Structure formats: structure tokens, C-alpha cells
């Protein structure tokens, strides 16, 4: 297993920071890609951030009311070693991800 850290992404419109309103996931929780993970407020609007990754949440950064700068760590996932996105494995990364998502849908049915 590998830990994968995601920083607060560039939110566009020249924004450099966001305030955490509420976390929608917690450490230990398994999340799907694109699942909403946190509510944030910027100087312009409030938004939900979708998860960039499927995996188990290891850590979250910023309590409600805290400010996080763009580029600072926001969330850390634990993922299998072969999906950690190491340079050179990117093409391999695509196919398994699709299979995982397909089987997840079948399971729900």
C-alpha cells in the first residue's frame, strides 16, 4: 500500500485559498472517485470537491473554519502500490480503474 497526498487544487478565477465548511468523509472511510469529499467556501462561492481518487482516506487536513491554501495538502489516501500513479505506469492506470468502476456498479445492482 502507498499513501497518496492530494493538495487543494487550483479553483480558478484567481483564487488562492479556501475555507473548510464541512468534511463529508472521515479517516478510515473508503471513497469512490468523484464522490464529494468536502464542502469549501471561497471569497466567491461555496463548492463541493469531488474525490480525485478511489481509496481509503488516511488523513484530512483542515477543520471546519480553517483556511487551506491552493497547493497545500488537503487529503491523503491509501491506495494499492500499482495504482499510485508512479511515472511510467500512467497508461496501465486507466484500464484497471474502468474495471473497478464497472464492477462497483454491478455490485450495487
Amino acid at each position, binding site marked *: 500500500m502507498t499513501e497518496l497526498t492530494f493538495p487543494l487544487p487550483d479553483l480558478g478565477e484567481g483564487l488562492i485559498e479556501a475555507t473548510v465548511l464541512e468534511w463529508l468523509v472521515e479517516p478510515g472511510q473508503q471513497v469512490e472517485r468523484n464522490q464529494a469529499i468536502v464542502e469549501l*467556501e471561497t471569497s466567491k*462561492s461555496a*463548492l463541493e470537491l469531488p474525490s480525485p481518487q478511489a481509496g481509503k482516506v488516511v488523513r484530512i487536513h483542515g477543520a471546519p473554519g480553517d483556511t487551506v491554501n491552493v497547493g497545500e495538502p488537503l487529503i491523503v489516501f491509501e491506495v494499492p502500490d500499482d495504482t499510485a500513479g508512479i511515472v511510467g505506469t500512467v497508461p496501465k492506470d486507466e484500464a484497471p480503474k474502468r474495471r473497478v468502476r464497472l464492477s462497483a456498479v454491478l455490485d450495487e445492482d
Partner: protein
Amino acid sequence: MTGRHTVEQHRHTVEGTDPGLFVQIHEPANDAGLRPVLLIHGFSSSSKLNWQDSGWITALQEAGRRIISVDLPGHGRSYSPEDLDSYTPSRIRADFLQIVTDAGARPLREGDPATGVDVIGYSLGSRLAWEFGATQPDLVHRMVLGGPSTADPLAAFDLAAAQRHLADGTPINDASTAGLLKMAQLLPSNNLFAMLSLIEAIKEEPFDPSEAAPHMPLLLVAGEKDERAATMPELAAIAAKHGANVETLLIPGRTHTNVVTSRAFKEAAVEFLGV
């Protein structure tokens, strides 16, 4: 995710002119068989900011709802017409009627959950929804009005002071006017001329909630710290006086800006409209 998709509705003229409003239809993966939901965003926002980025489109799609989103004139990806008439609330309501009809909404028929349309508005969008529901009782089934108010801060906007400020930097005395102008200037994508045209047009048709009140069931929602929605109880009383079944919900700790992403708000709206 299978089957969930979004398409842009094609444009055509209404009353002889093309309103140029950007409309999208968001289909759910599994349709619950209920009437479509029209989303009306607030001043200086857009369907993207108010509904997409905040997670509303996803939440409604997951509930099996078909969604019609529209950007107000001069907002988001809609045109910024030169003429003032395009920005009047009455013209915008006529455009909404055409848009929902084009999207397949049909007049309400007793016992048929696919007929009619549900509406969710936020702030200025709630004002427009209030009037739309009041004037389209045969079409609108239920409405959720977020950050609603009996007041009309846009009609009270000091246009002369704003124009002086834009011309030579003269400070604006009225705090509400200064705040609204700042909001309009925050997004580089906003067309300031169009924002001021909308304000000018709204001054011609200021909000009077008692003049025409909706009769269908209403859910009014605001953040506990939302000063702009402080008059929500009065608005609820007006609707109740006119015979509407009104529920209200205050979301703890939230403001006019940040109540929009609230899970409690979305869940209450989905449940209220899910009948």
C-alpha cells in the same frame, strides 16, 4: 453513472427575439418518473456556480430527477443583450415558461407525478420562482426557495452611486449597494454592463411578494446567519395567508453564501420535491 448525461437545449425566439439564455437538461441515470426540476440561480452567480459546483445537480440526479438549469441574462453562458427589456423579471418568467415547455413539462394532472414542474430557486432566483409559481399555478407543483426575502435589495440598489463609483472611484455610501456591486465585480466572467442592466430592469418591476403569491406547497430554506434572508418568516406568513402549505428550515451556522452546499439543505429539498 451509466446513462447520466447533460445536453444543451437548442435556442429559438420567444416573443420575436432570441433571449439567448443558456439552458441545460441534466438526465438522471435512473429516472424516478417524477416531473422535471427547474433550477434558478442567484444574482451574480450561474448554474455552474450555484448548482453544479455546489453538488446540487449530482444530488438531484442521484434522486432520479431530470433537471432543467438556466443561466439568467448576462450571467454564466447566457447572452448579455443590449436592450433593457430582456432583463425584466416578467420577460425572464416568460422565457422560463418557454424553456420548461420546450423541455417537455406539461400542465399538472391530478394523479400523474410526471406532469408539472418543480422549482428550486436561490436568492434572486427565489424571487423569480415566487412570481413564476404565483403566475403558473397549473404548471408548478412544488417549490424550494433558498435564501428568500420579502425585500428587494436589487430594486433598492443605488445605481447612480454605483455608476459614479465605476467612473471615478467615489465611495458608495449605501452598504447594500456597495456589497452587491462588489459581488458583481468578483467574477471576471460577469458582464458588468449586463449586471447593471438587470438591476435597472428590476427597479422597473420591484419584488412585491403580496401582489401575487404562490399557492402550491413551499419549502423556504436559509442559513441561520443569512442576514439577507432575515425576513423569511414574513415571506412564509404571506404565502400561508394566501393558502399555501409552507415549511421553513434554518441551517445552523450557515450564511447566504455558504448554505448552498449544505447537505441538510439538499436532502430537505430532494425529500420535499420527491412526491
